């Protein structure tokens, strides 16, 4: 069954906000575009899942996480550790959605 991505975006934002805490209000305008890009990449992975290897999936996941970390940690109030945790939390939401919809998908 295909994933309903309409709810995933807000779940991703909630996951990041809960890690970042009160500073989310400051970083949100810049980070939201990155979160949307993350969800769109996850959608592309869903659409092309049969043409992607585990190494390729992990490469995209890590590149996307690094891009989000870069945006978050460019703000003085957010440490690199918190940025890494927030990026991991964001990807965890889309990975869970992919796992639930495609439990047999080998690279998840």
């Amino acid at each position, binding site marked *: 069954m295909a994933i309903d991505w309409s709810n995933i975006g807000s779940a991703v934002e909630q996951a990041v906000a809960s890690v970042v805490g009160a500073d989310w209000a400051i970083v949100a305008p810049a980070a939201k575009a990155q979160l949307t890009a993350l969800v769109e*990449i996850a959608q592309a992975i869903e659409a092309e899942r049969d043409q992607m290897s585990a*190494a390729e999936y992990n490469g*995209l996941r890590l590149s996307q996480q690094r891009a989000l970390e870069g945006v978050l940690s460019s703000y003085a109030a957010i440490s690199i550790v918190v940025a890494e945790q927030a990026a991991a939390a964001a990807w965890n939401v889309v990975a869970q959605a992919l796992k639930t919809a495609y439990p047999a998908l080998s690279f998840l």
Partner: protein
Amino acid sequence: MRRPTLAQQLHRLVLTVGLVLVACSAPPYDEQTDRLISALQYDVDSQIVMLLSLDRKIAELATANNDIARKALAEARARAGYDANAAFYDKLDSQLTSLRLRVDALPTEATPNIDRAIDDLRANLLTGEGSLRSVHQKQGILGEAYLRNERRLLNAQFQALLSYELVLKAGAGIGKK
């Protein structure tokens, strides 16, 4: 209301990151840095486009059943493989080092942020877990779906750096970190 496309989202992101990179001081615009970023972007994008083209050729020839086509398939596979492209990654390593040296030559308060953006780019291209080079090395031939998405991600990172240079060229200084 229509949702913005990924390209629009990336554009907004790039502008935001560009402005954040300018940070609390406005260092002088450096044409050489601008050229180094543009050359690096062009080299990476051209290489990915070449690999995408080889993927399509491999797919076309995959069902071939004559000697000429089989030979062409073997050649395309060899050209798409990591070994045939190792020199490209070495060149990127040098280009990224030149870029960072140039940026660090005249340090300002914004330099740590720009350095981090270059380091993130290096991690995604060469050194990080899951970098373009490491996936290529592990897999031999990169798939079309992966290359298309990786191209999009990398170009967004380049755009952030280029936006930063454009903001400097325009003589703007925007405060934040």
